[in-house]
C-alpha cells in the first residue's frame, strides 16, 4: 500500500519538483551573473508553449524512441521510490538513456549524431561510479533493496564518503551541466547547436524536458539515500543535503567552461577510482 502511494506521489510530484528545481537553477544562475533572471515558473511556461506548437518531426520513430525514454525513466523512478532493487533501477535507467541515443541518431542529423555519440561516452564516464555506489550500499547494508537501505539504522554516508564524492561528481555529467554539457550544449550557439536535442521541436522537446525532471528527482533521491537512516529528523537533513548538492551543481555549471569528452572520461574515471576505490579498499580491510 505504502509502495503504491510512493509511486503515485512520484509520478504526480516529480515533474512539479523537477520543474521548480530547474526554475530555481535558472534564477540562481542569473543571480550569479548579476541578472534578474526568468520567473521561477519559466520552465513550465516553456513546456506549455512547446506543447502548443505545430508538430514537425524528422522521423516518426523519434517520437516512439522518446516516449520509450520517458516511460523507462518513469519506471526507474517508480521502482526506486517503491523501494525495489537499486541495481535494477540503474539498469533500467541505462536502457532509458539508450532510447534517448536512438531518438537522436534516428534523425541522421550530423549535430544530433555527434551529440548522441558524446552521450554514449558520457554513459561510459558515469556508469562505473553508479555501479560502485550500489556495491558500497551493499557492503554496508547487506542488501540492494532501496526500502531496506533507506529505513535501516545506519547513516550510509558516514561509511561511504568516497562513494558520495564520486556520485556527486558524475551527477554533473548526468545532469548535463557544464563542464560536462558535451552532448547537449546548454547554451546557445555552440559548435553542435543543441546536440542531442537539435532535431527535437515542439512536443518532442517537451517530452525530453519533462523526462529530465523525472530523472533529476530520481537522482536527487539517490543522494538522499546516502543520508537516510529511518528517523524523521533525518529526512530534513536529507532535503538540506539535496539542496546543497543542487546548489553545488549550479555553482560548478556557472564557473567552468566545457571540457572535451576524452578529458571528461579520464577525469571521471580518475575521481571514481580514487575516491570510491580507496573508500572501497578501506571498507573491505576494516570490515
Amino acid at each position, binding site marked *: 500500500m505504502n509502495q503504491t502511494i510512493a509511486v503515485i506521489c512520484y509520478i504526480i510530484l516529480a515533474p512539479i519538483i523537477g520543474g521548480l528545481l530547474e526554475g530555481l537553477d535558472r534564477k540562481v544562475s542569473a543571480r550569479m551573473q548579476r541578472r534578474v533572471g526568468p520567473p521561477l515558473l519559466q520552465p513550465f511556461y*516553456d513546456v506549455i*508553449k512547446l506543447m502548443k506548437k*505545430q508538430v514537425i518531426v524528422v522521423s516518426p520513430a523519434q517520437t516512439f524512441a522518446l516516449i520509450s525514454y520517458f516511460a523507462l525513466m518513469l519506471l526507474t523512478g517508480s521502482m526506486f521510490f517503491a523501494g525495489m532493487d537499486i541495481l535494477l533501477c540503474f539498469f533500467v535507467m541505462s536502457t532509458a538513456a539508450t532510447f534517448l541515443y536512438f531518438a537522436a541518431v534516428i534523425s541522421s542529423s550530423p549535430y544530433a549524431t555527434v551529440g548522441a555519440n558524446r552521450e554514449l561516452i558520457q554513459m561510459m564516464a558515469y556508469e562505473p561510479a553508479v555501479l560502485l555506489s550500489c556495491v558500497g550500499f551493499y557492503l554496508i547494508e547487506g542488501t540492494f533493496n532501496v526500502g531496506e537501505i533507506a529505513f535501516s539504522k545506519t547513516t550510509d554516508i558516514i561509511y561511504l564518503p568516497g562513494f558520495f564524492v564520486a556520485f556527486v561528481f558524475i551527477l554533473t555529467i548526468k545532469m548535463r551541466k557544464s563542464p560536462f554539457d558535451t552532448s547537449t550544449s546548454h547554451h546557445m550557439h555552440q559548435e553542435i547547436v543543441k546536440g542531442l536535442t537539435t532535431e527535437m521541436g515542439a512536443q518532442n522537446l517537451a517530452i525530453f524536458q519533462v523526462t529530465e525532471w523525472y530523472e533529476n528527482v530520481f537522482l536527487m533521491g539517490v543522494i538522499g539515500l546516502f543520508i537516510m537512516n529511518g528517523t524523521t529528523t533525518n529526512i530534513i537533513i536529507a532535503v538540506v543535503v539535496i539542496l546543497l548538492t543542487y546548489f553545488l551543481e549550479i555553482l560548478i555549471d556557472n564557473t567552468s567552461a566545457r571540457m572535451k569528452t576524452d578529458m571528461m572520461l579520464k577525469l571521471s574515471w580518475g575521481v571514481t577510482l580514487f575516491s570510491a576505490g580507496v573508500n572501497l579498499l578501506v571498507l573491505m580491510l576494516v570490515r
Partner: protein
Amino acid sequence: MAKVKRSPWLLHYDGSSCNGCDIEVLAALTPVYDAERFGVMNTGDPMQADIFMITGGINTQNAEVVKQLYDQMPRPKVVVAVGVCACTGGVFKDCYNILGGADSVIPVDIYVPGCAARPQAIIDGVVKAVELFQQRSDEHDKLVKQGGRPDAAKDAVKEDKEVSNG
C-alpha cells in the same frame, strides 16, 4: 494557462549584413539587458525557435538558407527584419548579388529600421513580435481545435495572412 508570450525563443540569422546589426542584436541579448527575464532564449536551432530575427539583405547564396530556416520553424512563428539591409537591402541594394530585403524570400512581420538598428529599437521590435506571437498562437489554437490536429493549421493559415503588420 500560461501565455505562450512568456516564452519566446529567438533564432538569429546573419544574412549578408556588415555585422553592425548583429553586434547590436547580440548587445541587446547580453546579460546587461537580461532578455531572459522575459523568458527570451537565444537558440541556434530553428526547430525550437519562435521568433526569427534576420539581419542583412538576401543574396543569391543565402536565399535558400533563409527559406529553409523559415520552413523548419514550427508554427506559430514571427519574423523580424533588423536594420535597413534586412528591410529593403539598404546600402547594398544595388549590388549585383543582392535580391533585396528579407521579404524577398520569406514573409516579414516586423521591420526594425536603422543602420545600425539601435538596441532600443531592436527590443521594441521584439516586444511587438512577442505580442504578435501570442496573437498567432491563439489563432493557431483555434484552428487546432477546429481541425483536431496541429498539422491541419498549417494548411488553413494562408501565407497572405502572415504578411500583416507591415
